[in-house]
């Protein structure tokens, strides 16, 4: 299956920050980096439909998700975007299986057999079968992350957005999880955006980087392109 193209060109205002960006991506993860308060998470929330841009458009494949000129604004639940927030946001009252079944039950037209089968499939895919009946509050950070990924992917989103997926890990675990995530995301063949403030994470996870400073894109390109020709002091420091 050819991955859909995610294209967004929007401007908006979040509190005092004027946020404007244009991005286009197909398969292969894009790392969105930048200092604290640059608007990285807001960028994700605008794509998701949680924050409404003032103007511009967001398209995913042939679908228009947002278009200020035509008055289109597809609500969050209709955008088919997978989202893994920094804290993973697993439903604490549910088991691992419950979290994934919750997602699948949101989809119309799935029979109970479909739900069961698909749950088993994603659990196996992310090596969670043995943990299926555990409460998510009893899981380690890495396990939580895999559940969040499994839950987001179970409903077959058309793009995947991850916010600081490795922020909760200490140094040792971070390296292992980074390697797992880099391999997993590269195999997914989905437009994927990974927000991170960490250079090692950005380099490992993102085929391309997009640098956001104070709500504006200052540079996009591969790690080596940024290294060869940094557009700002932040970029120079980041890729050093």
């Amino acid at each position: 299956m050819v991955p859909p193209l995610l294209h967004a060109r929007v401007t908006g205002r979040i509190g005092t920050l004027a946020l404007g960006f244009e991005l286009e991506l197909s398969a292969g993860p894009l790392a969105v980096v930048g200092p604290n308060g640059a608007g990285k998470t807001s960028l994700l929330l605008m794509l998701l439909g949680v924050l409404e841009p003032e103007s511009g458009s967001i398209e995913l494949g042939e679908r228009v998700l947002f278009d200020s000129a035509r008055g289109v604004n597809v609500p969050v639940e209709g955008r088919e975007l997978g989202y893994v927030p920094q804290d993973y946001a697993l439903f604490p009252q549910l088991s691992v299986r419950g979290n994934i079944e919750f997602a699948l039950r949101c989809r119309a037209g799935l029979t109970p057999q479909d739900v069961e089968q698909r749950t088993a499939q994603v659990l196996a895919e992310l090596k969670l079968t043995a943990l299926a009946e555990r409460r998510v509050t009893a899981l380690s950070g890495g396990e939580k992350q895999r559940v969040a990924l499994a839950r987001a992917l179970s409903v077959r989103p058309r793009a995947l957005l991850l916010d600081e997926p490795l922020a909760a890990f200490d140094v040792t675990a971070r390296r292992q999880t980074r390697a797992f995530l880099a391999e997993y995301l590269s195999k997914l063949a989905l437009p994927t955006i990974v927000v991170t403030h960490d250079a090692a994470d950005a380099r490992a996870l993102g085929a391309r980087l997009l640098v956001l400073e104070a709500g504006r894109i200052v540079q996009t390109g591969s790690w080596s392109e940024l290294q060869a020709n940094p557009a700002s002091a932040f970029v120079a420091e980041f890729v050093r």
Partner: protein
Amino acid sequence: MTSRLAQRLVRRQRLQRAVLGGLGGLLLVFLALPVLGLLAGTSWADFCAGLAHPLVWPALRLSLLTTLVSLVVTVVLGTPLSWTLAQAERRWARAAETLVQLPIVIPPAVAGIALLLAFGRRGIFAGWLYPAGWSVTFTTAAVVLAQIFVSAPFFVQAAVSAFRRIEPNLLIVARTLGASPWRVFLRVALPLASPGLAAGAILSWARALGEFGATLMFAGNLEGRTQTLPLAIYTALEADLRVAQSLSIVLIVVAVVLLLGVRAALGAAPSRAAAASRAVAPPSGAR
């Protein structure tokens, strides 16, 4: 540090503890004494004799019935209101929240007058509400209305803050998974807020059970129809103090049980801080 200086610091700390503890202790004793007085001043025989009085059972039955009805109405209507207020960020929502809290601070007697002027026989809606002449005042329904008016704010306040404590990302993620706003409310928000809702319901029930002033003014003190436990205590005070004492003890026992219920419900609530610390729990490699 010299040992003399250390000693002085220790002394100062002890003095501070003694002064603050002593002042606080005064209040604690003052709060405890009336309850002790009530319990100590009522013998078992008095208690039983008091409970046998004909005032008691109709009042107890009426109190249970009316508070149950007002609790159901409060929860059924208060939960949607609280969710709406917790979600809304507009100025009208803040204004509505303040309005809802108003009955907590206005005196019950004033609440009674206000209810009379709104829903009474000569109230502003009388012509529209009572074309046949019948009116709600001095009926059991008036007792329920008075209880809802004074107690619902406690539920709404607790419920709004329970809904606000839900991690916003949980609601966002649920929607990205395709959950409709109904499903988000029923399957995510309600279960997560349920300990707070339960605590609010108990608080509100306790307030309704103790309601006196507004009931007296709006519903009157009619035995079997509007005479709830607090009104029966008031009536008994003139006839037989033992009856008042027995009923008071019953209400205190109920209050203590309800208070423990609130604490248990809130103790079960996963706080945001706890949830945050779980998010940074030791990763798999560290196990």
